[in-house]
């Protein structure tokens, strides 16, 4: 079903385009997660959070 890389799917994207969207989303999620992780470490260290 994805054999044809040129096929335009109902969403208007081709397989290559879908992978591009996915790649950017994963990248954004990683950046967001990294920032959040850092923020939580700081919160744990500098505030009464977690005792």
């Amino acid at each position, binding site marked *: 079903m994805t054999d044809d890389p040129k096929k335009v799917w109902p*969403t208007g994207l081709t397989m290559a385009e*879908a992978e591009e969207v996915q790649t950017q989303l994963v990248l954004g999620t990683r950046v967001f997660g990294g920032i959040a992780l850092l923020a939580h470490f700081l919160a744990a260290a500098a505030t009464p959070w977690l005792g």
Partner: protein
Amino acid sequence: MNNSKIWLVVNPSLGVPLLLGTVAVSSFAVHYAIVTQTPWLADYYEGAANAAPAPLVVAAPAPAAEAPAPEAVVTEAAVPAEPVADAAAVEAPAVDAAAVEAPAAEAAPVEEVAAVEAPAVEAAPVEEAAAVEEPAAEPAPEAVVEAPAAEAAPVEEVAAEAPAAEAAPVEEVAAVEAPAPEAVEAAAAAEAPLAEAAPVEAAPVEAAAAEAAPAEAAVAEAAPVEAAPVEAAAAPEAVVEEAPVAEVAAVEAAPAAEAVVEAAPVTWMPLLDLATQLNTLGYTVLSVSRVDDAYYLVNMTDANGMPVVSYLDPATGTPVAGPAAE
């Protein structure tokens, strides 16, 4: 990656906002709950979170009564106690008696005795006094007081043999007579001067009677208290009268205890000293106020500039649990 195929059937213009929106809403909900449902975050923002670590319980000086004055030491040796002492001494089993052999000693200012500040006399922190009240019968079985002093009698007695000795603050003067080793703790001999110590009255006792009297020890109170724990209170300046006579310190515990308590007023360390102490610890004092006549409430910032509010002991400047903590 097969995961990317989702975008072949789900329009990114819907899927991406839905994904990000879900993350944003859930994250907001969690943090909102923390802000509204927990007390520590609000306290933290108000600057109280890092305040006084653990409430230290500072032993009030007053409670001398409870606090045993183990260390009471007899400082001065008295003069000539010998004549009398011996007699009593002989019988006196009290070995431990911290008694001062030296004849009259002045009462050793027991440091611990909260009473310390107070003139020894009043202080007469005879804690054990309490013990005294107790029947302590055992201890002073023999303590026979012929002494006219009626009071003395009730009391377990202490016989002070040392002549002229001044107070024998011997703390643990062992209960001389008191066979009960445990019991023995305090012995405060008081002389007339101790009058204030109301509780303690000296009554001349016959030497003989004074078995109790620890040998050298000027005074010994039988601390009949079974509870060894009782600590003897030192009767600082108790003075023994004439050699031959032994004084009995009739100590009534209760009164003595009270006296001690009263003797411990709240003392406030100078603000300059307090500020210096806090600066040494890295804090910058912003303001200081007295709360409930029992604490110093200090607003300050720590080395990192974080605001800190702490209740401090008025005498030592150490953190204590303030009213808020209760």
